[in-house]
């Protein structure tokens, strides 16, 4: 059934349709509507779940982990500072193999205080062992939330569903809300292979010496590596049931492209608009929107990107002292690869500065004009 809803509510609907059983969350702009709607759903019985109104995000994630270990399906949502405060517990969720699903609204990190979008909050969690899905529309937010539960519970690895502040979180779009019965078919009840219970007592997450820790973490990585195939697979199953395919990457006109833009989040959709404009102007440009960042879609990148003469990665984030994170990882992914086009690493839109079709035209103009980038980082839109 079609509804006009904001991105935050798309998250709430996703969590509701997934029949989340325990929700522990703490408010933060621009995430608040997610929890507000969920607490209403719990109040009026639309959703049968325990909503724990914790006193901080650190406790939110701790409670989710506990509930997940007890065998319940758990959900939370946060943003920026809240996500950062969870950092220790993010490691905990992945290392303990607790398949929590979390929505994160991309918001720039303070200081100075900013409530506007960029990806530094979620991308500085790239090493915590969570899967990361970057969404470009409210529909994708809802669909991805449901898919994330399925993938997480299959791999025992937690997932982050990520959307841009305001540009999605507070923007109303037409969303097809799937009906519960079909979702239930796609996503059956959570039945963990081990849980904390007196019926079969185990001690979980205890002291682990050098003789065993390595193997446990090796397993985590191996399961991560099963991720890409599983995401494509469940994405196909999702299409069969709901008519919408969920893929690792969303490649647009890349086959014959001389320049491929690598993008993510809402900027990844805005880029399509720019591509259409430039195609009209006779420029062979394509757009590869990365929907999944963890596990990193090595094969997809290696299959699609080398076709181009040049690659222009547009990062709405930065690893200070290095460069944009998508650019960094795309390069390392293509490093060993035969065809090995130059990668231009652009940074734009930090702190919520708008990214428009014009941004991408600027990016392509530069890329066209240069054989190789003149610098590690190419800044777009800084008032220099």
């Amino acid at each position: 059934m079609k509804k006009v809803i904001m991105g935050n509510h798309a998250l709430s609907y996703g969590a509701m349709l997934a029949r989340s059983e325990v929700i522990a969350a703490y408010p933060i702009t621009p995430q608040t509507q997610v929890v507000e709607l969920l607490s209403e759903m719990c109040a009026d019985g639309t959703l049968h779940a325990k909503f724990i109104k914790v006193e901080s995000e650190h406790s939110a994630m701790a409670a989710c982990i506990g509930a997940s270990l007890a065998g319940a399906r758990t959900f939370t949502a946060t943003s920026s500072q809240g996500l950062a405060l969870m950092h220790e517990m993010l490691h905990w969720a992945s290392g303990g193999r607790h398949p929590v699903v979390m929505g994160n609204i991309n918001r720039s990190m303070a200081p100075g205080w900013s409530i506007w979008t960029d990806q530094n909050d979620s991308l500085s969690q790239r090493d915590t062992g969570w899967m990361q899905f970057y969404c470009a529309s409210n529909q994708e937010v809802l669909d991805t939330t449901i898919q994330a539960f399925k993938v997480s519970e299959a791999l025992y690895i937690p997932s982050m569903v990520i959307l841009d502040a305001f540009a999605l979180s507070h923007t109303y779009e037409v969303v097809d809300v799937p009906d519960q019965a079909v979702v239930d078919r796609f996503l059956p009840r959570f039945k963990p292979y081990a849980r904390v219970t007196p019926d079969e007592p185990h001690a979980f997450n205890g002291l682990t010496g050098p003789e065993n820790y390595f193997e446990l973490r090796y397993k985590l990585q191996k399961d991560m590596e099963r991720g890409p195939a599983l995401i494509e697979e469940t994405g196909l199953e999702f299409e069969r049931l709901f008519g919408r395919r969920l893929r690792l990457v969303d490649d647009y006109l890349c086959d014959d492209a001389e320049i491929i833009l690598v993008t993510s989040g809402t900027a990844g959709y805005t880029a399509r608009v720019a591509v259409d404009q430039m195609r009209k102007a006779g420029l062979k440009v394509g757009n590869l929107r990365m929907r999944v960042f963890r596990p990193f879609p090595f094969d997809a990148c290696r299959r699609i990107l080398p076709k181009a003469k040049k690659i222009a990665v547009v990062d709405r984030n930065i690893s200070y002292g290095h460069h944009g994170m998508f650019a960094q990882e795309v390069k390392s992914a293509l490093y060993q690869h035969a065809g090995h086009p130059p990668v231009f690493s652009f940074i734009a839109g930090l702190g919520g500065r708008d990214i428009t079709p014009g941004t991408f035209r600027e990016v392509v103009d530069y890329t066209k004009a240069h054989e190789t980038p003149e610098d590690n980082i190419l800044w777009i839109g800084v008032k220099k």
Partner: protein
Amino acid sequence: MKKPKKMTMTLPAEEYVGSGNLACQGCGANLALRYVLKALGLRTILCIPACCWAVIDGAFPHSCVSVPIFHCAFETAASSATGVKAGLEMIGDHETTVVAWAGDGGTFDIGLQALSGAAERNDNIIYVCYDNEAYMNTGIQRSSATPYGAWTTTTPVKFFKDQPKKDIDAIMAAHSIPYQATASIAFPEDLIKKMKKARDIKGTRFFHIYAPCPTGWKSRPEDAVKLARMVVQNGIFPLYEVEHGEKYTLNIKVKDKKPIDDYFKLQGRFRHLKPEHLQAIQAEVDRQWARLLKKCEQS
């Protein structure tokens, strides 16, 4: 050999903490959990944050305890327990008792906020703090539970702890939780009685158990129980319970309150204290003791 008369056993016989554990000789924390589980039995889940007990339990894939344990992050004893309880409820287990089992550092300091949050929500858990008055697992650093005057590696003799012990019991009473109690490993019968009472109450319940640490206190292992007894008899650590933050009941009535000196003498961590220090401490102990008696009378 004399004909066997029945052995007197004043505690439940079952043992849920196993031998072979990694506690030091004469560890009070070890006794504390032994007693608590005797009271609660097998349908119990422990949430244990970083603390000595995270080590005592043993290393993966081993555990010395017969009930399930969720070893959780240092500051999350309460929030983890809340989460576990919520999860159990949702999958239909309404009976299992969920216990947060933390040290004083994990309770008075880094875990206080999570505990206060759970108490405010009146989450249905039992929170137990075993108090050895310092961060022992990391090698004896001061916590806010460290008493005035004590040496620790971060409060060197020249610079011994000059703040009083944080009054966690008053703080919890301020949260008006349904039930809270202090206990000592020297009085296991009292401890077990109160723990059983608490088990059948709904909402947030808080226990503060005095658990001497020979290693950290520079005391003799064999004195562990003795110290836990003295501290009750000299009024430094009275055993009482509080209901809804208001109704105070003294559980162990001390007729002639002992002076504190012997208790201090047995512990290396206090060796540097001068008589004037001890007098000051004695005075404060008497004052607090009087305040407590008053509270008990008035409720």
